[in-house]
């Protein structure tokens, strides 16, 4: 096997990015990673190439293509489903540096950057749980909120669990409606589901549905209710109705990987990018919605608790009931 990582000419580091199957244009995961590299290109002078796998089967050949080329100082792989491919690549190219974004898998010689879905959506859940009974002008008396999934995938279900945990943490009696669109590219259906939920009394809806989520915002605007964004900050899309976004700064994560490479601090192993690291969380920036002071205080307190490790979040739907029973605000 040709190995390149050793021979390092004095040229700008070159990065290979293997996106996830959604591809560019998702204004989310993939676009943010791309942004991160663009920023790195400007700030750190690196060069990069990227590939868009069409299906999970493409992960292996595309990673291998980068590794075989021997000219990439770092491969950045997006999404946990690249695990099997990376294991194999690592075996054949032990010296290839690989950063694995959004995975907590431990692979010898790979730097995995783990994010916690639950931490991403939890605080929005708290806002929703408090907001639904609050005096906020678009909230109603119903003690109901909702969460909408693009497709039923395990990691997304973790996000749902985080949101529900957040709601129940402050409002155990709140009814959380759940539904799955069945596609990431169907905003029309996303809107219908959201309308249905709003109609059944929900006043805050968190979406984890990619482009289908754009329909949720549209619904929020139409019936004058609240919604939460996900991924990159989406608050500007409907600033009067999007209260906050469950942020995940994939761009920063990717940028950090590159800057670690450039400054020589890159090392294999598990990196946690959680709320504590500022990589996930919640942002109200660009939103015109004013949260009552009381809610903001509670959110802040909770955030501190999580960062301090006093509050450990559940990571699956199954763990929810017992977690809720054990963890209540107050």
């Amino acid at each position: 096997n040709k190995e390149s990582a050793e021979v390092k000419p004095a040229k700008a580091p070159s990065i290979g990015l293997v996106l996830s199957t959604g591809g560019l244009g998702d204004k989310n995961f993939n676009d943010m990673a791309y942004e991160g590299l663009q920023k790195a290109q400007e700030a750190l002078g690196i060069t990069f190439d990227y590939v868009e796998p069409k299906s999970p089967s493409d992960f292996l050949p595309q990673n291998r293509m980068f590794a075989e080329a021997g000219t990439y100082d770092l491969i950045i792989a997006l999404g946990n489903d690249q695990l099997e491919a990376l294991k194999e690549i690592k075996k054949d190219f032990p010296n290839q540096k690989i950063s694995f974004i959004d995975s907590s898998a431990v692979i010898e010689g790979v730097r995995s950057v783990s994010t916690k879905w639950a931490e991403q959506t939890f605080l929005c859940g708290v806002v929703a749980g408090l907001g639904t009974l609050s005096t906020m002008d678009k909230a109603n008396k119903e003690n109901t909120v909702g969460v909408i999934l693009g497709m039923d995938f395990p990691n997304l279900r973790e996000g749902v669990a985080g949101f529900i945990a957040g709601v129940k943490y402050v409002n155990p009696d709140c009814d959380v409606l759940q539904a799955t669109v069945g596609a990431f590219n169907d905003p029309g259906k996303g809107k219908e589901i959201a309308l249905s939920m709003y109609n059944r009394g929900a006043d805050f809806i968190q979406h984890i549905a990619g482009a289908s989520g754009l329909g949720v915002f549209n619904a929020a605007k139409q019936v004058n209710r609240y919604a939460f964004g996900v991924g990159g900050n989406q608050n500007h899309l409907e600033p009067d109705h999007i209260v906050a976004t469950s942020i995940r700064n994939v761009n920063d994560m990717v940028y950090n990987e590159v800057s670690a490479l450039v400054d020589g601090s890159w090392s294999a192993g598990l990196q946690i990018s959680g709320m504590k690291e500022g990589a996930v969380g919640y942002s109200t920036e660009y939103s015109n919605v004013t949260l009552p002071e009381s809610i903001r205080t509670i959110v802040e307190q909770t955030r501190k608790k999580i960062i301090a490790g006093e509050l450990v979040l559940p990571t699956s739907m199954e763990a929810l009931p017992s977690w809720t029973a054990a963890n209540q605000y107050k």
Partner: protein
Amino acid sequence: MVDILTHLIPSVLLSTISMSTPLILAALGGVFSVRAGIMALGLESMMMTGAFCAVLGSYLSQSPLIGIVCGILGGMLLGLLHGVLCIRYRVNQVISGIGLNLLALATTTLLMQLVWKNRGSSPQVPSLEYAAPFSPLFLISLILVAISAFLLFRTKFGLRLRMVGENPKAAASMGLRVHGYKYAGTLICGALAGLGGTYLSLDHLNMFVRDMTAGRGYIAVVINILARYNPFNTIWCAGIFGFSDAVQIVFQGKGVPPQLVQSLPYVVTLFVLAFGVKHITPPAGVGKSEED
């Protein structure tokens, strides 16, 4: 908690209406195409192009009405393309339809990249505004159904179009401009499907998202056939689909895995197909030209 009578039922009905509107329009388009003897597997491409052009038109002109016109024209463009391929170049109609579906997805994505520098979604554009609880396009689609039925079954144009679809050779021998009627069929088809797509992007929403028709064109094909290529039947066929889709939304999150709940409209369709609407025969001239 939720009052079934005052909340759930109206909500499901409104949902049914808004989910079946694009299906009615596109399936109605399919009726014209099939009645003229051209299979309409390319409805998806017409809807998608319609949806895209509508948003593009509204984006450039900042006027949703111009957007609607553009959406209709976009659908017609694809209808024309389908027509040219099937009529002039005698392409297999299944392949033309499926090929155009792939092509429309690729080109709209490409154009988004070129126009908006993002291949995922467009910016928000001015869209239709109205105070009614459901879209005026729904009423318009019902009117269009009635007009279509009148046009097909009560006018000379309709008679000739059907004759062309049933037996192009006979129609030619009666002195009809067979190609003209076939093009009329595919163009009307494109216009209606384009309007269906426009509904999705410019009425129901205010943006275009890559592949946002999400298979509705194929469902419209199903409805078109299930309706036995009859305008009025498209209403209830689309209604059944839209209704079961609305119902499945309500049933979600009640412990049943979502994949199974989501299959509800499809399972219902399958039952209707097996036990309700048997032995559907398309016009005899579908796929034939006047030279066969």
